[in-house]
């Protein structure tokens, strides 16, 4: 149906439309920007409730929930907002997201790279422990996050026994072909850092003898390390004598 011309619209209607439009823009501009507030993060619903909400397709819900959770911690104007969050709730949300989408890596990335970076040792440890627990559920896919946690435990927390326990878990459980050797070798170097040369030497020798390392450069590097460990051990024995 052909419409009538513009002139058929009375002038007051056009004025109302123009004024209302201008008022809406002005009203919207003067409104404060929405800001995420740490205390507003609620507890997550149960996995069953989330399953029902997802209408049988949990992955999109997991992804939306992840982005929503992320909006709580990355807003401009909040200096170190992660620190203000209730980490019990954060952890519960991350766990729910992983339950909805177990193959998704995003929650573990957030735990190890974002939430574990706060200047609060207790919160850092809590997030690393979360990564460790979740690693155990799927080591072949989740090893990068535990490897990161190992490095954090060593360099940030200066907790070598904790780093060693994570590295040992990596070595013992992440054994698939997709896991690089360096991840499984971390425990050897941690033993070395802790002065446990004998253990490091045995593990390194075992690794080389197993034949799992095939790259000539890597074998050469590891042999060099083994030789230096042998040297350190000999010198320590001679100093004891």
């Amino acid at each position: 149906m052909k419409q009538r011309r513009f002139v058929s619209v009375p002038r007051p209607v056009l004025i109302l439309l123009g004024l209302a439009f201008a008022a809406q823009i002005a009203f919207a501009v003067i409104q404060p920007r929405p800001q995420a507030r740490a205390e507003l993060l609620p507890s997550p619903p149960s996995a069953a409730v989330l399953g029902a909400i997802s209408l049988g397709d949990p992955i999109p819900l997991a992804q939306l929930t992840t982005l929503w959770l992320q909006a709580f911690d990355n807003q401009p104007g909040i200096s170190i907002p992660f620190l203000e969050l209730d980490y019990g709730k954060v952890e519960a949300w991350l766990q729910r997201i992983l339950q909805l989408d177990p193959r998704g890596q995003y929650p573990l990335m957030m735990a190890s790279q974002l939430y574990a970076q706060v200047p609060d040792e207790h919160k850092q440890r809590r997030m690393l422990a979360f990564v460790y627990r979740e690693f155990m559920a799927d080591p072949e896919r989740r090893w990068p996050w535990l490897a990161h946690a190992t490095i954090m435990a060593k360099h940030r927390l200066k907790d070598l026994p904790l780093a060693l326990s994570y590295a040992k878990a990596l070595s013992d459980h992440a054994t698939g072909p997709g896991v690089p050797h360096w991840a499984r070798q971390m425990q050897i170097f941690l033993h070395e850092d802790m002065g446990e040369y004998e253990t490091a030497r045995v593990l390194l020798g075992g690794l080389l003898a197993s034949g799992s390392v095939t790259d000539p450069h890597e074998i050469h590097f590891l042999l060099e390390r083994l030789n230096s460990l042998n040297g350190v051990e000999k010198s320590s024995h001679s100093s004891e004598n």
Partner: protein
Amino acid sequence: MLSKVLTIARFTLLEAIRTRLLWIVLVILALLFLASLFVQHISVTETVRMQIGFLAATARMAAVLVLSLHLAGSMVREFNDKGVDLLLSLALPRGGYYAGKFLGFAGIAIAIAVLTALTLLPLAPSQGLLLWGASLAMELILVSALTLFCVMTFAQIMPAISFVVAFYLLARSISAVRLLSTSQLLAPSDWTNRAVARLVDTLAWLLPDLDRFASTAWLVDQSGALSTLAANALQTLVYGALLLGAGLFDLYRKNL
């Protein structure tokens, strides 16, 4: 002129009563109340809080859907029955007809908001409920103005309701979308991220700020304030005028 406008508004209200709209609303509210009892029953802690939250959110969504469906159905029927042609053949400007219809639907919106608030009265008898009910009434008035505009533009139920639902959901979630778009994790110096954030901001300016309306927190945490309600009222006035202007613009250009 005013008496004719009020007559149209009165007949719009009468139509809602005769088509048993209010009974339908009551039945839906009763069903939702029963469902909220189930939610309360399966909750381990904060049982009443959970019940109020569930009932308030679902009742608000149901009120929006029922109102917009009734409005779209009523207007399309009037178009098809040539009732609009008949009315406009009388000594009544198009603006008067539109204003009468809007007043009638606004009255229905207020009635639905009152019934919804009364459903929550046994659970949250507080000042927060008053604020929530008033804010819901304003939200529904905006929804009725929006649906009226959409029916004028599309003249069919399906596209009109699709637009209303999409618009409503976007207006309710636009603040969350703005938060997501300004993430510091997304390299804010990158021009594509800045452009997306700017686009979302512009979109937010064009939408009513519906996520500040009828917040469940007002019921469960008593966090509502008169100043928020005043801001809601101003938003309703401004955006309502914009939608009325747009609807009138379309109606005056329509060849009947």
